[in-house]
């Protein structure tokens, strides 16, 4: 069975190589994506929900000393991330226009990004966990620089490279320091974790390593003030790259915090939780306000995705402050990572379709799209309301759990603690999201259509990837247990 997981990691990389060797790009990549969907379905099917250990585990020793191994294995959390990855990959590949000049590059690059992300989510070795993410970042930078949209693509590519490059570097230092402090010969995450439980690192050491990891992972997830790369990069990125990075790859940082930092550095994370609470409120309130001021749909989605990371950091902070029995925070974070990934990918895909019809993404220049293209309006409505946190769509379930996690262990006799205050302020984010989303919807979709433009309705082929993402939001919104059932806690 481990072969299924290994195949899932290497298939996209192989397909990217084949496309590089002149294989028919669209057929190869979509075929690969469909096979990958089936592979993840197989993983879901054979996943043993009772087992606490890593499943489909395999390991190939690369280096004896220090012990680095190409090791894969998944638990419930990684499984949900894999599900997200293949879903978004499928939709992103489908969105690529095969007639574009650089289509081949986009197909191969998207497959590489997804392959890297899947490799990172499936790795049980700390070294490859990091390395696969780096592997995914390189095509991200290149595609933004080479196939970027708009006049600022170059500078946006430069900026995201700078930020994420430096962030990764700090992260690397932090991970190495962690490994060093644990005094473990190997890089196996499971063993490192066991070691951290049995023989915790001294609190002072934990503290500075945790800070490095918060900065490192945090910059990858656009924690304010390390967020400036996000909005321009997403606005400049070709659609599949924006979908894959905002939807999937960005979640690596959170995944890392949940997988590495929180369990291995409980003391250190608790020490910095106060800072995290302040920063995440900046993500939600301050970036929320910045989002309100956005004038273009793509920048708005980029900023909103920075804003919504605040909820996920809230889950991390709640876990750090209340300990691992706050299962609400874990579950909420995982659910919300999935939901946000799907909804932001859908929003970027819809922005792509709007631009293809109207030639602009400036909100003020759009009007009456709901009348001209009803199904686009319907799908946009689903994505927008999902992102607002409307019940019945996936994001709500995640957000609700995260908010509840802030009140886990609430003792009224002691009054409201910083975590509860932060949670209450974070809830205000649901109002802010509604403001910018409904304003944009009002301007772009309501009113009378611009008669001077041709608005061809969406074709079935165009609807398919959009409907797949929207469908996932509805299904998980109605039945969040479909994902949560894989989680042991």
């Amino acid at each position, binding site marked *: 069975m481990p072969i299924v997981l290994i195949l899932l990691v290497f298939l996209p990389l192989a397909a990217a190589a084949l496309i590089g060797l002149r294989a028919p790009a669209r057929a190869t990549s979509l075929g690969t994506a469909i096979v990958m969907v089936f592979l993840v379905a197989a993983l879901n099917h054979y996943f043993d929900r009772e087992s606490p250990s890593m499943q489909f585990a395999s390991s190939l020793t690369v280096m004896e000393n220090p012990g680095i191994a190409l090791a894969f294995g998944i638990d419930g959390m990684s499984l949900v991330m894999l599900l997200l990855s293949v879903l978004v990959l499928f939709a992103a590949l489908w969105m690529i226009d095969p007639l574009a000049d650089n289509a081949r590059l986009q197909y191969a690059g998207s497959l590489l990004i997804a392959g890297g992300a899947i490799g990172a989510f499936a790795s049980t070795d700390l070294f490859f966990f990091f390395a696969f993410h780096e592997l995914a970042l390189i095509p991200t930078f290149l595609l933004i620089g080479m196939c970027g949209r708009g006049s600022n693509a170059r500078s946006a590519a430069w900026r995201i490279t700078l930020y994420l490059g430096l962030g990764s570097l700090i992260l690397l230092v932090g991970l190495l320091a962690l490994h060093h402090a644990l005094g473990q010969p190997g890089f196996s995450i499971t063993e490192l974790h066991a070691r951290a439980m049995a023989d915790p690192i001294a609190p002072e050491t934990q503290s500075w390593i945790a800070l490095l990891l918060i900065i490192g992972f945090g910059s990858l997830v656009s924690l304010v003030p390390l967020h400036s790369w996000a909005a321009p990069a997403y606005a400049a990125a070709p659609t599949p790259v924006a979908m894959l990075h905002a939807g999937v790859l960005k979640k690596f940082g959170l995944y890392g915090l949940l997988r590495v930092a929180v369990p291995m550095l409980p003391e250190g994370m608790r020490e910095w939780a106060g800072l995290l609470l302040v920063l995440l409120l900046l993500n939600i309130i301050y970036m929320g306000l910045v989002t309100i001021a956005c004038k273009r749909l793509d920048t708005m989605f980029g900023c909103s995705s920075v804003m919504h990371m605040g909820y996920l950091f809230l889950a991390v902070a709640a876990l750090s402050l209340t300990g691992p029995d706050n299962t609400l925070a874990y579950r909420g974070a995982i659910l919300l990572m999935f939901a946000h990934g799907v909804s932001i990918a859908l929003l970027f895909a819809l922005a792509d379709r709007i631009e293809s019809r109207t030639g602009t993404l400036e909100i003020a220049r759009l009007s009456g799209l709901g009348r001209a293209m009803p199904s686009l309006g319907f799908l946009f409505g689903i994505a927008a309301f999902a992102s607002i946190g409307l019940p019945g769509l996936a994001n709500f379930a995640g957000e*609700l759990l995260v908010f509840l996690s802030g009140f886990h262990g609430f003792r009224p006799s002691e009054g409201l603690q910083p975590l509860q205050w932060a949670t209450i302020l974070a809830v205000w984010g649901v109002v802010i999201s509604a403001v910018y989303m409904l304003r944009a919807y009002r301007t772009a979709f309501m009113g009378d259509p611009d008669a001077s433009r041709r608005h061809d309705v969406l074709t079935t082929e165009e609807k398919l990837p959009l409907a797949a993402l929207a469908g996932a939001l509805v299904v998980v919104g109605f039945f969040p247990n479909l994902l949560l059932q894989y989680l042991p806690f």
Partner: protein
Amino acid sequence: MVQLPWLLLLLPLATAALIHFALGGSGRLAAWTGTASAFGMLGLSVSLLVGATAEASPFVWLETGMFHPDLEQAITLSLKTDRLALSMMLVVTIVGALVHLFSLTYMAEDKARPRYYAGLSLFLFSMTGIVLAGNLFMMFIFWELVGLSSYLLIGHWFTKKSAAEASKKAFLTNRIGDFGFLVGILLIWGAFGTVDFNALERRVDLGNLPLTGGLLTAGILCLFAGAVGKSAQFPLHVWLPDAMEGPTPVSALIHAATMVAAGVYMLVRISFLIALDPTAAMTIAWIGGGTALLAALLATQQDDIKRVLAYSTLSQLGYMVMAVGLLASQAAYFHLFTHAFFKALLFLGAGAVIYCCHHEQNIWKMGGLAKRMPLTFATFAIGTACLIAVPYVTSGFYSKEAILDSAYAASRPLFWIAAFVALLTAFYMTRLVVVAFLGKARSQYARDAVEAPTPMAFALTCLTLLSIVGGFRFFAEAILPRGFYPTFDSPHHNFVMAVSIICLLAGVVASFLLYRGREKDPLHITPLRRGLYIDDLYTGLIRLFQDGAAAVAAAFDRHILNGFFLGGTAALTQAVGSVFRRMQPGSLHFYLVLAALGIMLLIWATSTV
């Protein structure tokens, strides 16, 4: 075996999906499917009320993974099918079915009928969820969903600017209330470990509450904020008059009879919590009383027939909220029950008038309609009689007396406010009837108006009957929960009734003398016409604090944060990378340098282990 409450909940959802996905092309089919489904729901509610098995096993929506014994392990959708829920369901489905019937004619010409009927079904689904909710989580879920369906229906004619703005305003204003509601739920959940109504009530009965003092007050008032939004109480009342941009049958169903009453329904559900905290209760009562007065004052100066009715809805909801705050939630619910019928009647009557006058809504362009539309006039007059509480023969009389009685017992200032509101109500409703229906026709449309067509007339007649019998003991006691029908045996009852009859007469007579035979409004009080400038104030506040803050934040982000960090890092890399600059500049190279650095670091670090 199908569980009837679940069927009742899911039938409208299935209908909405069917209409949206399968019947999008046929307005006729969509209309009849929606109507049939609404009548099906009515049948189900009646059968549940007369004693069909109302058991419904809970649906585990989301497992929390908690294993602590005091905490709930899952968020469930559990249906509470007590008398309160079932009687409310009856109200919702009766009005829902009649509104569907009415819409068959009213919306016959509309091009987007499938969207309209899908929206109505979605609304019925959401509303049923609120009514049957067994815990606050479930109630919140459906609370948001009624917000969505209200948004969709207010914005039904979304190409029209005012409708688009009104729908957005309604949703956002409600969101502010929902923010409070959710915070309240978090507080209650955090303290009690449950938000199930039965469990909470048991916990309260045990005494020794986990939540006391200021936090309890805050928790209750936060929950109340949800009702302030949904039931459009001051200061969040501004969305409801604008919501009249929706089609009139929608206004009747959602913005008069049912959804806006959901706030009151929720308060009645949690009345055992409100009773714990006098501060919170008094705040609620005063907000209700204040809204009743404010809205009644504003109603006296409206020229749009629907806006008069909208303000009167606000005012009546204020009565109900006040009663809840005075710990007379039975009276509040009884008034909700009677109000639903006569207010739906009034709105549908207004709808018939608007339909027959080619969408003219200004009462000063009507006049003389009593002769042209006798049946509509008769039903509208009866609805008005109920609203202004004509003694003994109208349902509104009984329920308003119950509220006034309890107000007199609990708080004299609020009683006198409520009595004055009764006077204002009689005044503005008489004005509406006199101007729109009596006198001479003041426009061509009014001269050419003809009686409403049969389906409309039928719906009006049904509601008229219900508006009359709704307050009678034999009828109401058969439907309402035990002990909710007032006894009227307090010692001050005769005094209260005398006051209310004097107010009624004073209002009617003053209005009649003032408005009979007038061509235009002799009163012109600008502040009242402009809603006491509250809307303008909010617009200013939003511009100043929200949009202003957003602009400042955006500028800060672009110029300072970006500049600082980017400038800083760029300078750093320039210093470090000047060596490499002679090689091709570009992001990839820089990145490779970093990666190389990283790998060197890695090798160094691991070799020292």
